[in-house]
């Protein structure tokens, strides 16, 4: 186990023990069981803030892992035809079993170099424009369903991004998704923050992994705005109601994909497979509907969101 989260620290001696026993070639069943028990204890009682930490765990499967494991014949498409190619967005076409699907997702990178070039998954204007271009291609030319994988800290905040029209670029994929006359499924697989996540989430069905979150702002960002104090983020995160469970209850999302105890970072294959199954079963349902109807549904759905006194 490479990396333990703060609230998982109690596992550290157990993992050490496990390693030692492995080295000495002693049986490890008992230790493993103990770890499992401890995990059960921790994971049955998570606070929203802890969920947000799990969602950002560096070992959690990334968009690229899902694409590699689930899609055959994946062909990546590049560029916005205007200014550049944003590595923080991966887009392309591939087959999920027998359905040809256009896939769009945010990429964070594994190595430091990758992470830097992807800005840790923060999306630049060219990324948004690339998304819009590919969505239109999927809807207009290929007529293939669209699946988006959301795992981003949001839109990139920088002088350069601002100059290239960040504020304008964000609306392009939103509109493109609204107008797409094909089924759209969004899957939140890690963190989904702010306008960056919103731009990929206009869908007929929104799925969420159990230990992922979807929020208007990161807990840290919110705390620094509302309290002017980053340390208050833990307190704020329970207020923001951003976990999969909360959002399912509020009707914002449609389905929670279960993660085993220990999270996706410990059960990569299981979670990826479960995600693939969930996408496939939802798509089977959606593909029965007519494209125009799906578009109307999507528009209706978003038109209704909001709670106010009337």
């Amino acid at each position, binding site marked *: 186990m490479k990396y333990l989260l703060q609230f998982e620290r109690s596992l550290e001696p157990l993992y050490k023990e496990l390693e030692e026993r492995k080295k000495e070639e002693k049986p490890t069943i008992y230790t493993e069981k103990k770890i499992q028990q401890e995990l059960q204890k921790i994971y049955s009682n998570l606070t929203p803030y802890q969920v947000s930490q799990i969602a950002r765990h560096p070992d959690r499967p990334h968009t690229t892992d899902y694409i590699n494991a689930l899609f055959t014949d994946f*062909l*990546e498409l*590049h*560029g916005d035809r205007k*200014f550049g190619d944003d590595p923080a967005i991966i887009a392309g076409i591939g087959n999920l079993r027998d359905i040809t699907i256009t896939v769009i997702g945010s990429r964070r990178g594994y190595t430091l170099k990758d992470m830097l070039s992807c800005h840790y998954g923060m999306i630049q204007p*060219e990324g948004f424009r690339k998304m819009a271009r590919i969505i239109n291609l999927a809807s207009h030319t290929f007529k293939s369903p669209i699946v988006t994988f959301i795992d981003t800290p949001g839109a990139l905040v920088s002088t350069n991004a601002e100059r290239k029209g960040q504020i304008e670029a964000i609306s392009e994929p939103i509109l493109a998704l609204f107008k797409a006359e094909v089924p759209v499924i969004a899957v939140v697989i890690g963190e989904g923050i702010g306008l960056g996540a919103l731009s990929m989430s206009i869908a007929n069905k929104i799925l969420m992994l159990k230990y992922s979150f979807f929020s208007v702002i990161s807990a840290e960002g919110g705390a620094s705005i509302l309290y002017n104090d980053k340390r208050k983020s833990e307190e704020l995160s329970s207020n923001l109601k951003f976990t999969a469970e909360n959002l399912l209850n509020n009707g914002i999302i449609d389905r929670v994909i279960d993660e085993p105890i220990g999270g996706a970072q410990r059960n990569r294959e299981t979670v990826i497979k479960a995600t693939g199954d969930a996408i496939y079963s939802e798509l089977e349902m959606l593909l029965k509907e007519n494209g125009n109807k799906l578009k109307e549904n999507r528009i209706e759905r978003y038109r209704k969101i909001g709670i106010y006194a009337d």
Partner: protein
Amino acid sequence: MSLFRKRKKIVVPVITKEYGENKWIRCKSCGNLIYYKELKENLKVCPKCGYHFRLTAQERLEQIIDKDTFEEWDAALSSDDPLKFKALESYKERLERAEKNSKIKSAIITGKGKLNGYDTAIGILDFGFIGGSLGSVMGEKIRRLAERASKEKLPLIIVSASGGARMQEGIISLMQMAKTAAAINSYKKGGGLYISVLVNPTYGGTTASFAMLGDINIAEKGAKIGFAGPRVIEQIMKKKLPKDFQSAEFLLKHGFLDAVLERKLLKPTLSQILSYYRGKKW
């Protein structure tokens, strides 16, 4: 346009049949001697350094389209000389020379064929014919290709290798840019899939019209693609150009291409895209 001057600089050797099956060829990039047959088997890519030799339209066609499935369209079209243009050599003479050297009647072959079993309309530019330049015939052939592809509900592939607009036809060649763009526009509006393949070199009016309008733009590795020739830019900016300037990778980085591919991957990728397109209804 300005490409004609560059021909001396950018080395794009053509190897014709007469060159002989048994000859040795020196790779212009790494300098190694390669046996012609070996080169040919390797799709005219240097086996030592990966340098992509230039292909004639016919060779390209053989590489992309399944054997004996190609049906050529509008083969009879040939250039006229509307301006009675005469420079050091008159346009008429230039055309005759090009026809003699390349054994084709215009700088583009169009038609219909199968690509790994998928029916497709295809156009291939030949750089060997007056630099693959965009003139009336090419404009008309592309228009007919797009219109017919639209009618027969075929996907459309155009492989570009061109120096730009054909100066000898003056303003009429410029208007071919508008003409091809209009043809592609109508084709795309009908829901067709247009894949543009850009190979070394694609410049000027060709890049600035149909070659950049693909739903999917693909470049062959090592292709130089741009609007203005590098010399012109160098002269105007009085500055050395970056090393990878106008290379396929440069364009990929700046968002104008979907993929940069080695020659051997070109056909499989095209067939992959066509397979995605296959199931859709118009």
